[in-house]
């Protein structure tokens, strides 16, 4: 998708981030549930995959995953508030806050992981 000039404004970027994070999570979740499912019958395979998550690059990828999850959560809360609560003119601030909180959460996850 090309960022055409009329799309270069903060709330459109917030939409794009929400869509990308949603698609990213939709791709991730089936693998996540598959891995959890391995705990029932293939515990050795599961342990192997969990050890794989000790690699630094995988840790960093998990940082991205936590960020996507958090930004989708807080961005979604902003949209729910937009649609169901009285209108607030602070939408750009709220969208930026969702990104900032998500980044801090993901950073906290990374700090604990390393």
């Amino acid at each position: 998708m090309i960022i055409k000039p009329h799309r270069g404004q903060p709330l459109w970027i917030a939409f794009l981030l929400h869509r990308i994070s949603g698609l990213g999570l939709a791709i991730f979740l089936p693998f996540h549930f598959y891995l959890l499912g391995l705990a029932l019958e293939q515990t050795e395979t599961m342990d192997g995959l969990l050890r794989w998550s000790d690699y630094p690059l995988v840790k960093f990828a998990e940082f991205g995953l936590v960020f996507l999850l958090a930004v989708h959560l807080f961005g979604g809360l902003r949209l729910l508030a937009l649609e169901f609560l009285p209108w607030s003119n602070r939408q750009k601030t709220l969208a930026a806050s969702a990104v900032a909180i998500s980044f801090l959460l993901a950073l906290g996850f990374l700090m604990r992981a390393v």
Partner: protein
Amino acid sequence: MQESTDILEVGVWRGDVTGGQLVSYQVPRQSSQTILDVVTWIQRELDPGLSYRFSCRVGMCGSCAMMVNGIPRWTCRTHVQKVVQDNRLTIEPMRNMPVIKDLVSNMDEFFAKWKLAEGQFHGRKTRYDPIEPLLPDSPRRLAASAAIECINCGICYASCDVVSWNPAYLGPAALNRAWSLVNDERDIGQQSRLNAIAADAGCHNCHSHANCATYCPNELNPTASIAGLKRLAARAAFAGKI
């Protein structure tokens, strides 16, 4: 006023419903020059065959909107100095509307959607009844006032990605109009309006990109109006009215 260079390089979309392309023109730069001035200069001095639409030249009639460097703008109130990039301008007909010729867009569907969104007033009184008093500072009147100064220029419609993704979508202008009438205490057509705005082509299509609110030259906020319609439709759905 001192300008950086004297000649503007202007690409103007020339063509009709069968297709077209950008044609380059060189236009002398002047102080306080608007985009409409540029287009008018091209028509008067270089190519009398150039078609475009304007009327009032003071930002009231809403007829001169065009895409300027990819963003829809009211050209009579847009100064070249504000939007020019590297001394270049690209001027194209409005997005999301079929072109008629050159910079003239066909706005039939845009206006038809105002009707589909029940954008007309349904009164219960005649001219022989006394005028109904409305408190200017009542919450509903204030909500209507916030949405009412639309000049039908179509800029919000041209900037809306949801319109381009779903051509049936009523669009920000029509829904903003519906919201101003939802808040009109004298209107007795609210149920039919509710049915129109909550239907498949209605307010629930909106992704809250807020392009409409970003580019509205009158600084209206159709995104806020559509959010109001969404709340209204949600309440009506829970109450079994739709």
